[in-house]
């Protein structure tokens, strides 16, 4: 089980790092993608875009380095739930847009929703791993 959790942690960390690094060269485009979801007020879209990438970067670093693992995995799970929510509301309203997942021009589709839900599984596994039992000194 330990190995499975380790693999999930490294995988989720790598995905978040990759997501952040691919957005860094063009944060303006990412902000425009967020605006196209038409859920946030235009005034906060720019700061939110920068913050999301910062959180993705830190979460990815924490998970791959193995520090603050549980909080980082909890944060990753929360973000994935938010991403799924954003995507579902946009697709349900028939908004045609890029997903903004890993930079680039990938279209947002129901397949993207399924992928994000699938990514949620390893993140939750790490977040919900049982704490190691406290060692007693006799």
């Amino acid at each position, binding site marked *: 089980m330990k190995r499975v959790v380790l693999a999930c942690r490294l995988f989720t960390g790598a995905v978040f790092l990759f997501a952040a690094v691919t957005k860094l*060269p*063009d944060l303006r485009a990412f902000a425009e993608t967020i605006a196209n979801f038409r859920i946030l007020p235009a005034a906060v879209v720019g700061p939110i875009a920068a913050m999301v990438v*910062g*959180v993705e970067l*830190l979460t990815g670093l924490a998970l791959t380095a193995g520090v603050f693992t549980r909080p980082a995995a909890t944060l990753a799970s929360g973000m994935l739930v938010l991403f799924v929510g954003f995507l579902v509301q946009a697709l349900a309203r028939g908004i*045609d847009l890029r997903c903004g997942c890993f930079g680039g021009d990938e279209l947002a589709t129901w397949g993207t929703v399924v992928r994000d839900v699938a990514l949620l599984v390893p993140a939750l596994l790490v977040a919900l791993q049982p704490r190691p039992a406290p060692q007693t000194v006799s």
Partner: protein
Amino acid sequence: MRTGIQAMILCAVGSILGLAGNALTPRPAPLREPVHAAAEQPGAVCHDLSVEIPRISFTDAAPLCIACKASFVDARSAAEYAGGHVNGALHLAPGEDPALLLPQLRSPVIVYDGDAACAVADKVAGELRALGVADVRVLSGAWPGWLAAGGPGESGACAVCGAGR
């Protein structure tokens, strides 16, 4: 409980990191000005992102024009077309009936408009593709790019495109 608080702290630190690092990126997100959805921009044109129309550069398109080996379609207004257009180009604005034009088109069909974003050309190209024209491309740089690069042009209304043009 402790995990939740630590996650919030991590989120706050990441947010500050993102805001502070934004300016260091090649194309930072605008922090002090609103960012509107593309559909809310002035002059926004409905554009189906699932229909990717390939681009063609001036370098590739100009020889096809000179050798008459392609059809050029001008998607700007009739007045703009009359003021100057690619040599031999036909005129077809978005939403106009292309019935008269279709038999005159030879492959490849190169569509252009007056704006470097090519949104109008994309729309007309999409319409032509929907009507079965297989090889449709959009001219990169549009009409201003063509002019600036010294591409062959002419002026006058289109006699063969349809009534009133």
